[in-house]
């Protein structure tokens, strides 16, 4: 019998702990499949953040470090500098990367650190139970913005891809979404590009995934994708913001 789909070698057999309808599993799978395809499983190392993906170190089947909140790019920097023969990535959520870890992400990108950063943006803090994120949309209600995010008070959501694209050093920056099979196929191409550049030692690569949080948004999984399409994509526009390999500066 021919095997046409199987668990990637880059994933352990530990079951994911994510909520039904959560897209972290899809993002994990895309990264793991790509690492398999590039033959990097023996030289790969990842850094898990604080957030819903805090247990990512259990799910990826190669060496993994669990970092303090927001510090994953600094930890990855230390790992890569200590083991230049290894390929290193971080996997971070919006609170981790765009709030408490802003210094670490900006400066690792600015150094052109030879790491890949996978950033999952679902506009909310999932693990702690639905608080406002730096990417929470204007007027969006969360447990710490119960009257909606007031931009006059707390400002606008941070567009991480565009922010990092103001820096000279990053090699590749792209925002993709995980809201439909066609978009997931596109997202896979971005992951492949980031990890290929990583393998080739080109420099800092960054992929932002627009994702959902059915549990904390209080919307069922199918409708949450529609909600994200209508509300998130107009503000967080998918696209390639930097690709030095393709002349996109």
């Amino acid at each position, binding site marked *: 019998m021919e095997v046409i789909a199987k668990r990637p070698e880059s994933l352990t057999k530990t079951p994911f702990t994510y909520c039904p309808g959560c897209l972290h599993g899809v993002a994990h799978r895309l990264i793991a499949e790509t690492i398999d395809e590039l033959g990097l*499983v023996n030289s790969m190392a990842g850094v898990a953040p604080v957030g819903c993906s805090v247990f990512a170190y259990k799910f990826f089947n190669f060496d*993994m*470090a669990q970092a303090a909140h927001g510090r994953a790019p600094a930890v990855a920097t*230390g790992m890569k*500098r200590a083991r230049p023969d290894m390929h290193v990535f971080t996997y971070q959520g919006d609170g981790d990367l765009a709030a408490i870890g802003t210094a670490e992400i900006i*400066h690792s990108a600015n150094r052109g650190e030879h790491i890949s950063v996978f950033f999952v943006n679902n506009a909310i803090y999932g693990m702690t139970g639905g608080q406002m994120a730096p990417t929470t949309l204007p007027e969006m209600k969360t447990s710490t913005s119960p009257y909606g995010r007031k931009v006059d008070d707390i400002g606008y959501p941070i567009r991480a891809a565009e922010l990092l694209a103001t820096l000279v050093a990053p090699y590749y920056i792209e925002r993709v979404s995980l809201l439909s099979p066609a978009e997931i196929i596109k997202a896979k191409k971005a992951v492949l590009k980031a990890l290929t550049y990583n393998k080739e030692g080109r420099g800092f690569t960054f992929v932002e995934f627009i994702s959902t949080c059915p549990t904390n948004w209080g919307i069922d999984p199918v409708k949450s994708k529609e909600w994200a399409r209508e509300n998130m994509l107009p503000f967080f526009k998918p696209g390639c913001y930097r690709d030095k390999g393709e002349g996109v500066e």
Partner: protein
Amino acid sequence: MAKVLMKGNEAVAEAAIRAGCRLYFAYPITPQSELIEYMAKMMPTVNGCFLQAESEVAAINMVYGAGGAGKRVMTSSSSPGISLKQEGISYCAGAEIPCVIVNVQRGGPGLGDIQPGQADYFQAVKGGGHGDYQLIVLAPSSVQEFADMASDAFDLADKYRNPVLILADGMLGQMMEPVEFKPKKTDEEIAILGEQHNSWCICPNQDGDKKHHHEINSLEIDPLVLEKHVIKLYEKYAIVEKNEIRYEEYNVSDDNEVLCVSFGTASRIVKSAIDELKGKGKSVGLIRPITLWPYPYEQIKAAIGPKVKKVYVFELNMGQMVDDVKIAVNGKVPVDFFGKVGGIVFTPAEVEEKLEKCF
């Protein structure tokens, strides 16, 4: 090797490189700037990594990553910067990351000043970061000892998979003294050291054959598992306490009428006062703890001779180590304390005056 005249900050950096440290991450702060500058200058000449981090917070997390990858790694700072590193230090202790941290202490609290102090004793030996953990803490009192401690610190960090803190001060950092360095580790020796942690650290699968899934982690969501982990850490600390206590005795004898306890820069001033009193026929001894953790409790207790009327503690703070001395003395004789703060260092005459009143 001939002796060279060097600042403490430079000597500890040179000694770290000689001990095989090839990764250094830090942020500038006075009075340790010569240390980061020396590393910036010398690391590229030995194919090492020098990286000026965006913050102390980032620097200690780079240490977590590099130490987690099994390599000899160091960071350094001064008091306010060490406060910023506490989160990362707690993670390093929890995940059992071997690494070396240097604190060239200055006056506090807050921004304080840039003069020498010893007010980070509690932070160094009683926690500092969150959770139950211990650092191995070494306290030098000369530039020579500061340099020698660099290799000792790496050896201890590797032996026990634990962060080691060298607790110096602005005086030792800035002062120039003759220093003789240990031989440089060869590239082969450094390569062997770099692979010694491959059974647990972040490292490639050697033969291109999927063999391991190592986790660098301090998270244990199951309380029973976390409890087991913390107990395991404390079993390790008990072994450190058994094997690694270091201290110096100075003029300790049965004739002592006062026993002093003092560490680092402060202890040198106490020694001068003891010498002066000796000339006047007054016998005073000194115990200088070299490891501030593990602490020489038993050794202090044992040094209290039959004629000792008082144990006198001298520190450049408002009285921190004196608490540990009281534990050691356990009510056997009175314990007194004299300290100076704000970056002011007491003089031998001031110490002598305090001691003379005990006779």
